[in-house]
C-alpha cells in the first residue's frame, strides 16, 4: 500500500520539477509531440510503401513533403519511421542502462578483485571505437531490429557502467549502508533497496542520454545499409535518399525532414536532461537561489560565490 503511494508522489514530484524548469518543459513538450506522432501517426497517414506518384516530386498540396526516388510519400515514411526509430531508441536506452547498472553496481559494491576485473572489462570496451565494432557485428548477423538493438547495447553500455560504479563506490562508504550490512541484510537487498534508490535521478538521466545515443547510432548504422533496408525507419529513409542520389538531383525534401526529426528528438531529450540536472544538482540549485535573492534586492548577480555576498 505504502509502496503505491510513494510511487505516485515520486512521479508527481518529477512532474512538478519538470514544470518548474523551463528547459525541462521545452524538452518534455518536444518529446511528447514525437511520442504522439510515433504512437498515433501511422494510423493517420497511408501505407508508406505504396507508390503514390512520380518519383522525386517537390513538396506540394497533395504530398506535403514530396515523394521519394521510388515515388513514395515522404511524409508517411517519416511518420511511420518515427514509431520504429523511437521504439528501438527507447528500448536500447533502457537496456544499455540496465546492463551498465548490473556491471557497474556489482563492481562498485563488491570492490576488490571483482571490481578490478569488471573495471578492466568496461574500460576496454570504452576505448575500443564503437561505430566500427558495431558495423562489423551488424554485418555478420542477419539484419533486423533485434540485431540492431543487440549491437547498440554491446557497444554502448560501458560508459554507464563506469559512471554507476563510481557512484556506487561513493554510496558504499556511507553510514546507512554500513548499518544495513551490520543489520545482516543480504547484498541483493542492500543494492536494490538502499543504494539504487539514491541514484534514481542519475539512472533516469542515463536512460535519457543513452536513448539519444541509441537513436543517433541506429540512424548511422541504417544509413550504411546495415539495418533491414526494406523496413521504414528514419535511418533507412536516409539510406534510400543517399542511394537515390537525392543530393545530386537536388531533392532536399527526401533527407532534410528526417534529419531534422532526429535532431529535434535528440535536442528535446538533451534539454530534458539538463533540466533534470538543474533540478537535482544542489550546486546549480544554490546558485539559482542566490541569483533570485540578489535580483529581488535589485542587485545585478555576478559570479555567485560567497565573496559576492560578503561585499553585499
Amino acid at each position, binding site marked *: 500500500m505504502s509502496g503505491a503511494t510513494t510511487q505516485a508522489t515520486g512521479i508527481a514530484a518529477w512532474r512538478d520539477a519538470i514544470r518548474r524548469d523551463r528547459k525541462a518543459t521545452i524538452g518534455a513538450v518536444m518529446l511528447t509531440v514525437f511520442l504522439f506522432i510515433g504512437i498515433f501517426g501511422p494510423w493517420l497517414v497511408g501505407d508508406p510503401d505504396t507508390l503514390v506518384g512520380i518519383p522525386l516530386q517537390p513538396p506540394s498540396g497533395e504530398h506535403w513533403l514530396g515523394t521519394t526516388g521510388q515515388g513514395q510519400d515522404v511524409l508517411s515514411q517519416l511518420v511511420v519511421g518515427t514509431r520504429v526509430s523511437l521504439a528501438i531508441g527507447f528500448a536500447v536506452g533502457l537496456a544499455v542502462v540496465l546492463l551498465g547498472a548490473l556491471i557497474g553496481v556489482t563492481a562498485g559494491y563488491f570492490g576488490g578483485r571483482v571490481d578490478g576485473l569488471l573495471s578492466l572489462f568496461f574500460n576496454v570496451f570504452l*576505448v575500443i*571505437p564503437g561505430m566500427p*565494432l558495431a558495423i562489423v557485428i551488424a554485418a*555478420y548477423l542477419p539484419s533486423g531490429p533485434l540485431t540492431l538493438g543487440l549491437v547498440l547495447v554491446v557497444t554502448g553500455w560501458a560508459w554507464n557502467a563506469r559512471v554507476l560504479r563510481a557512484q556506487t563506490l561513493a554510496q558504499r562508504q556511507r553510514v546507512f549502508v554500513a548499518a544495513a550490512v551490520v543489520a545482516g541484510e543480504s547484498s541483493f537487498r542492500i543494492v536494490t533497496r538502499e543504494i539504487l534508490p539514491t541514484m534514481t535521478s542519475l539512472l533516469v538521466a542515463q536512460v535519457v542520454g543513452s536513448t539519444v545515443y541509441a537513436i543517433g547510432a541506429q540512424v548511422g548504422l541504417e544509413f*550504411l*545499409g546495415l539495418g533491414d533496408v526494406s523496413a521504414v525507419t528514419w535511418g533507412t529513409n536516409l539510406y534510400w535518399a543517399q542511394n537515390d542520389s537525392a543530393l545530386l538531383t537536388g531533392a*532536399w525534401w527526401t533527407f532534410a525532414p528526417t534529419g531534422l526529426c532526429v535532431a529535434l528528438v535528440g*535536442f528535446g531529450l538533451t534539454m530534458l536532461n539538463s533540466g533534470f540536472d538543474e533540478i537535482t544538482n544542489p550546486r546549480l540549485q544554490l546558485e539559482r537561489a542566490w541569483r533570485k535573492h540578489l535580483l529581488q534586492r535589485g542587485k545585478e548577480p555576478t*559570479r555567485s560565490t560567497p565573496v559576492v555576498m560578503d561585499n553585499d
Partner: protein
Amino acid sequence: MRYLIRRLGFYLLAAWAALTLNFFLPRLMPGDPATALFARFRGRLGPEAMQALRETFGLTEASLVSQYLTYLGSVFRGDLGISIAYFPSPVADVIGTGLVWTIFLAGTALVVSFTIGTLLGIVAAWWRRGWVDNVLPSSLVFLGAFPYFWLAMVALYILGFSLGWFPLGHAYGDDLTPGFTAVFLADVVRHAALPVGTVVLATLGGWLLSMRNTMIAVLGSDYVNLARAKGLQPSRVVLRYAARNALLPSVTGFGMALGFVLGGSLLTEIVFSYPGEGYLLVQAVRNQDFPLMQGIFLVITLAVLGANWLVDLVYLWLDPRTRDSVS
C-alpha cells in the same frame, strides 16, 4: 613512468581484446562459420584464393586453439587476408590507401573542434551570462543533436550543390597529381573544408560545455580568488590559474571522443565520397567483404589506442599530481 607503462599495458590488453573479438566474430554467424562465410565468395574467388583466405582466418579443420594461434600469427605478419571488393589486393594494401585521409580528416576535425570549443568555453565562463554564454551553448547543443552525416548532406547540398562554393566530393581534384605542391595542398584544404567543418560544428558544443562547466567551478575556488586579490592581470588569472586546471577533464574527454568522432567522420566520408576508411567500409559492407571490414575495424582500433596513449602523455605533462603519485 610507472603510470605510462601501466597505461601501455592496458592498451596492449585492449588491443588483444579487439584481436580476439575479431577472431570470434565470424564464428558468431548462425550455422557453420566457414561454410557460411565462403558460400558468399563462391564463384568470385578461385580455389587458391579461397584456401589462402581460409588459412588467414584460421578457418580450417584444426582445433579452435590452433586456429586462434594461426590467426594471431598472420595478423602479426601484417596479413589481414585478401579483399573481396578489391580482389585480388591484400586487405592491408587497401586499408593503406585510405588511412592517411581518415587520420587527416578526423584528426583535423578533432583538434580544431577541441581548440575552438575550449576557448569558447573559457570565454563563456569568464563572461558569465554574457552573449556567448547565453546563445552559444544551447544553439551548439542543438547542432550537436544532428547526425554528423546529415549535417554533411545539408552542407553539401547548400554550399556545394546549390551555391557551388565547394567541390562535391573526393579529397582532391581529378586533374591534379598528389605531391607537396602549393596547388595540390590548397586543393586538399578546399576539399576537406566541408567534411571537417561539419564534424567540427557537430562536436563543438560538447567541448564548450565541458570547459565552461569546469571553469565555473574552478573560478569559484580559493586559489583563483587569491590570484585575483593579488591583483594579477585578468588574462593571467584566466589562462594560467583557472584554464590550465579546468582543462584536465576535457583532456580526459579527448581520449574518449577520439573513437566517437572517428566513427562519425567515417559516415561523413561516405557523404563526400572521401577516399578514407569510411568509404572503404561502405564498399566492404555492400560487397560483403568481411576481411576488409574486419581489417578496418582492427586498424582503426589500434589507431585509437595509440592516440589514447599520446593523450595520456599530455595528461602527465599537464597534471603534476600524476607524476608525484608514481615517483
